[in-house]
């Protein structure tokens, strides 16, 4: 740190040498009279125009919006009425007694655990398989990755049709002689959430695969060769050599999956509208339901603030856990 702070003045001084001749006489005089400290102060505003656009965007859009949302969360307001009613923490109290909110939280946790584990398993498997000498590997890579680029809005009607009582999935079960398993997959509370998770896994496994595939290219070949020479088989090499090297990627994927679970909106909204009977309600869909169709903008804002806090806490926990493990290693 000391080294860096010493370098800074010398670096700026070089620039100052170029700038000084173009300054008005009055400013030059001030700079000369003030010594190094004064010259640095005079230079400071010069950087402002460069960071102003980013500063305006981040402060104006992001932090202002968060602050405004926090303010709205203390109101009983429909979003357009002229006389919002201040309720203090009333919206938060209501939320903690709202069974739909707790259902949404449970769904989010369940959704994160299941989708993360299965995506990790599938992504890792695909990456390992496609790192071996497989014919038409490029074709398989494309097939695994294509769902990532398909918009959920396009695929939602397809899935609604596929999982309808007379849809293709039940047709497939009948064709396989498993007709007794056929059921209205998105029309009953017990199976609607698993369907949403299956669609999400189908959609995002491509990203997991790509990240693991890229990470595996970074594994030192000499380590793999050494493992082979020591007599390690495929599975032992995978679990004892490759998998530990994937730790950073797995942590990153866990963070992405957790944030994705908190933000989940499109698939449950488009496929099941959060139903039936709130069986696929997530925080995102509930915020939308309360804010837009029901006009409870204050309540929706309070839900948004809770979502923000949960996301921040989770990101910090993941970061801390990652650093501790790194320190131990």
């Amino acid at each position, binding site marked *: 740190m000391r080294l860096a702070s010493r370098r800074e003045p010398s*670096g700026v001084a070089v*620039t100052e040498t*170029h*700038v000084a001749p*173009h*300054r*008005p006489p009055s*400013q030059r005089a001030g700079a000369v009279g003030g010594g190094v400290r004064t010259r640095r102060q005079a*230079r400071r*505003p*010069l*950087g402002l*125009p*460069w960071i*102003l656009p980013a500063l305006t965007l981040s402060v104006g859009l992001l932090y202002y919006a968060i602050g405004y949302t926090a303010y709205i969360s203390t109101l009983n307001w*429909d*979003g*357009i009425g002229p006389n919002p009613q201040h309720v203090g923490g009333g919206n938060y109290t209501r939320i903690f007694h709202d069974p739909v909110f707790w259902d949404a939280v449970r769904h989010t946790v369940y959704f994160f655990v299941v989708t993360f584990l299965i995506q990790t398993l599938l992504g890792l498997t695909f990456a390992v398989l496609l790192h071996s000498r497989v014919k038409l590997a490029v074709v398989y890579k494309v097939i695994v990755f294509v769902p990532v680029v398909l918009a959920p809005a396009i695929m939602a009607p397809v899935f*609604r049709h596929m999982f*309808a*009582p*007379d849809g293709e999935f039940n047709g497939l079960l009948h064709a396989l002689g498993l007709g007794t398993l056929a*059921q*209205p*997959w*998105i*029309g*009953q*509370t017990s199976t*609607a959430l698993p369907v949403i998770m299956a669609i999400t896994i189908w959609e995002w496994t491509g990203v997991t695969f790509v990240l693991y595939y890229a990470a595996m290219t970074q594994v030192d070949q000499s380590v793999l060769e050494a493992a082979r020479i020591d007599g390690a088989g495929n599975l032992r090499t995978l679990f004892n050599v490759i998998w530990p090297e994937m730790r950073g990627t797995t942590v990153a994927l866990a963070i992405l999956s957790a944030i994705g679970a908190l933000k989940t909106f499109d698939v449950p909204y488009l496929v*099941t*509208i959060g*139903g*039936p*009977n*709130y069986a696929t309600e997530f925080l995102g869909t509930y915020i939308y339901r309360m804010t*837009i*169709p*029901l*006009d409870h903008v204050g309540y929706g804002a309070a839900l948004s603030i809770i979502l923000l806090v949960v996301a921040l806490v989770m990101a910090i926990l993941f970061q801390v856990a990652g650093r501790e493990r790194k320190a131990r290693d």
Partner: protein
Amino acid sequence: MRLRLLPKSTVRRLSFLLAATVAIAGLSACGSGGSSGSAGNATSGTINWWGWTPTDTATADNYIAAFNKQYPNIKVNYKLVNISDWVAALRPALASGQGPDVFDVQPGAYVTEFKSFAEDLTPMAEQALGSDWKSKVAPIGISGLTADGRLVAMSVGAVYAGMLWINEGTFQKYNLSPPTTLSEWEHVCQVLKQNNVGCFVQGAAQEGFDQDTLQSIANSVQPGLWTKASTGDAKWNDPGIVQTLAIWKQMFGDGIMQTGAVGYQQYPDANNDFLTGKYGMVMMGTWYTQYATNKAMTAALSAAGVSGAKPFPILPVAFPDVAGKGNTSEMYGDSDFGLAVATKSKNRAAAETFVKWVTTTTAGQQVIADQLDDLPALKSVEPNLNVIQLVNPSSQTKPVQDLVTSVGTVTEPRESLLSADVQTAILAAATSVATGKATPQQAADTLQQAAEAAGETFK
């Protein structure tokens, strides 16, 4: 890479330019957001009409074409917005001043929600129909579209519900009669299922259509009870409502409701399934009369993804006496929608001309009536069944004519008394009972609590 710093004079100029740009942008934003619209010309201009209904642009274009015969210099652009996206799309559009000149308003919650964005149309109604204008239009279209003494929208027409629609061909093929009791209904469903035909299809994931079925069941249990609960004269956990939910649950257990109904939406799922012949019965209102015609049925089949399908006749039948108490089928209705003129419209005069023509002239209302989507708001206008081409006039003309005549005496409201919160609570009660998550009594108690929490008061 190291950036060369700019001379201070240049920085000053840049800062000034930036500040000026921000100031101008701010001023222009204030200007566009805060200004009211202007009157413009009453017989020319371009106006934008947003609506969730008519649900197909061909019908709207038909209205506009008839309007343009009288007002050729007013161009009307119709934008169809799905009902599920309606509030999300309309609110910011109207608030920003960049929204439609004319927009649909449904009686009930939407009137309260959008009243501040709409002109009071009372002067327009008085000018078009005289000071006794209220006696010339269906009363059900005035009360539901009025808020704070202002006529937020002028009713285009009304819709009524409380009946079933059946596929005539399916019933004839299996020698079935329309059911009049719950046991007859169950028998019809058994026969159809034995022949691999679906019986009754309901989009139980959508609150409005669940309410129709529940209101009809409640009318069978105790006529008028549903409306009393809506007005606060009875509680939602009244024994009659509990029995209503119990019968609703029985319809799922006895095989009347299709499998997976609580995951179905009435539009497009149930509608498409009925129109493609997969099911023999559906709970729809008078707006479904349009599909008794060759033209609308063919268009609907095409929209449902059936190419080259032949239209088939559908018939309205009374809702069965499911409680077995001998109560006749009571119908209920609201203005389907009214047309509102946006306060921020820049072509307000032309917009009023369009709304006035559609809602108060005989020519405009006859076009609405002959479409058979809505029953016209003007009392003096009726559908001309001699001109309308029904799929099978010999079997359809009388039931359709009887339906049109019978709704003239209906006074029971459909949805206009229910707030969005209560409608959501009704859906939750219906689906929790259907899925077995709550007993009818528990669901009714929860519904009552939700209504009270939403600010409803009860005697």
